[in-house]
């Protein structure tokens, strides 16, 4: 990732960040992953297709920093029964579209299609995702200012989705 001068930032830097973030999730490097987030950023997974209002109708997830921390810390708990044994996940991602590229303002937005696989014991599920990242440049490094994860089959019934697509 580029350091310092905003003028040096390229679209490839933005795209590399998306790949790196996804890799952290797949490798379970959650502490590092949490550090990517701005304190007031929210992880939103809508329940309804093309849902506009995240809070006055039910979403799957609308996680503030406290909830994300709780989710990550719980995964490592002694008595986290649904994670004995632990789930594993894998993202296959398409090259992100960089829809907003504004190094001067330090604002970037990407849209990335992904196939997400989560597995535990004999179960494995595949979800098709469209992920929108809002990124900010803070002290020369990208931080997540918001992430929206849309499920292609959001109206289907699911069993547990335990990790973070």
């Amino acid at each position, binding site marked *: 990732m580029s350091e310092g001068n905003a003028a040096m930032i390229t679209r490839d830097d933005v795209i590399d960040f998306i790949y790196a973030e996804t890799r952290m999730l797949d490798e379970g490097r959650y502490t590092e992953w949490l550090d990517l987030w701005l304190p007031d950023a929210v992880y939103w997974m809508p329940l309804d297709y093309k*849902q506009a209002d995240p809070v006055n109708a039910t979403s799957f997830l609308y996680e*503030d920093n406290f*909830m994300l921390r*709780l*989710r990550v810390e719980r995964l490592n708990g002694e008595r986290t029964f649904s994670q004995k044994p632990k789930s594993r996940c894998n993202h296959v991602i398409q090259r992100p579209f960089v829809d907003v590229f504004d190094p001067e303002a330090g604002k970037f937005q990407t849209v990335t299609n992904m196939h997400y696989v989560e597995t535990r014991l004999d179960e494995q599920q595949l979800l098709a995702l469209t992920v929108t990242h809002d990124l900010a440049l803070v002290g020369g490094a990208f931080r997540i200012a918001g992430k929206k994860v849309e499920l292609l089959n959001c109206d289907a019934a699911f069993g547990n989705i335990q990790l973070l697509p």
Partner: protein
Amino acid sequence: MNANDIRAMIQPAQVHRDVYISDAVYQLEMRHLFTNAWIFVGHDSQTPNKGDYITTQVGDQPVIMVRHTDGEVKVLYNRCPHKGTKIAIDRAGNTGKFFRCPYHAWSFKTDGCLLAIPLKKGYEGTGLSDSQNGKGMQAVGAVHNYRGFVFARLAEAGIGFDDFFGGSLSSIDNMVDRAPEGRVEISGPPLRYMHKCNWKMLVENQTDTCHPMVAHESSAGTAVKIYEQMGNPEPRPPAMQIIAPFMSPYEFFEDMGIRTWPNGHGHTGVNMSIHSNYDAIPGYFEAMVESYGAERAKAILDENRHNTVYFPNIMIKAPLTQLRNFIPLGADRTLVESYVYRLVGAPEQLTAMSAMYNRMINAPTSIVGHDDLEMYERAQEGLHAEGMQWVDIRRLHTGPEDFETEAVENGTTERQMRNQFHAWAKFMTMSMEDAAGVAAE
């Protein structure tokens, strides 16, 4: 299996594991229990205009709930009288003045009556008009709309709505009374969460007050720990309001109290509940006082019932305007639909609070839901162990119990589970023959 076999599965303090794992029992539940009892269908705000419909299930029966041209809500079997094709399969829509089957274009009024058949002369002299199929789409046995909540009884004859629910309707009353305008409306689609377990495990869990501090320690306990590490900041993060109370000690749940009503209904949170300590939302109490006067407004809001089970298969949370429908798809498969409603006339933040609770607790992505589902699915598998045939429901069972009268007890009793099984046997066997081949009373 006959009525005596069914009754033999239910003892005062234990039930046979076949009630959870036997496919034959599931089939009998669909043909008897879910036929004789009043089953939740939907909320009338899902079909506000004439011709609006939703498709859903009553037990294993495909049905359509539709707003008829006279303004009433009808519940019809979702089956074309011609060849059986489902008339509608989208989950919601508007059909206008009539349904038209997409296979051969038979059409029906929104109360099910046959409207037209193309090339009708082909049926002249065939007797179609005298047959059941010639009448149109079949309606269910009975429908009742209680303050917007629509219930159906599949059986043509049987227990009346008021007799079936009795005093338990006070929980729906409290939920709807919490709206300054005295009505609620659906807010968005439901969460749909698939459980590989028997539907009764979910219903029992609603009044199982000895599991939160154990099964949910990983979520609620960790929340409390993180909050303390942060130095207990105010205002509390929303998760601390919603998830942390699950870590309340046993004494708290004992003091909550449990009330049971006849026919299997009951609720936790008689005196107070884990929903009693939410932050006040500005403007709400004022709006309630405006509508009801101070005394009545306070009485409505001081009632903080936790979970009310409407036997056999829904639960409502009045203080959070939520309803969960446990739809039985098989002995080992249950679809849980979790709805939130908007209190008409109340500040929008109340809806946001209900929606937040719904996603934090009832979603397939919920860290609370994950551990519940884990327990149910382990139980569904564990019950196949041949070494032990009975499931224990005897906590605070000390002698004969009379489920035909309302009772209030210690909040950790399993009396409500026993109440449900008492009602289960009653509604399972009322339309069955006993061992001698004689119809039961």
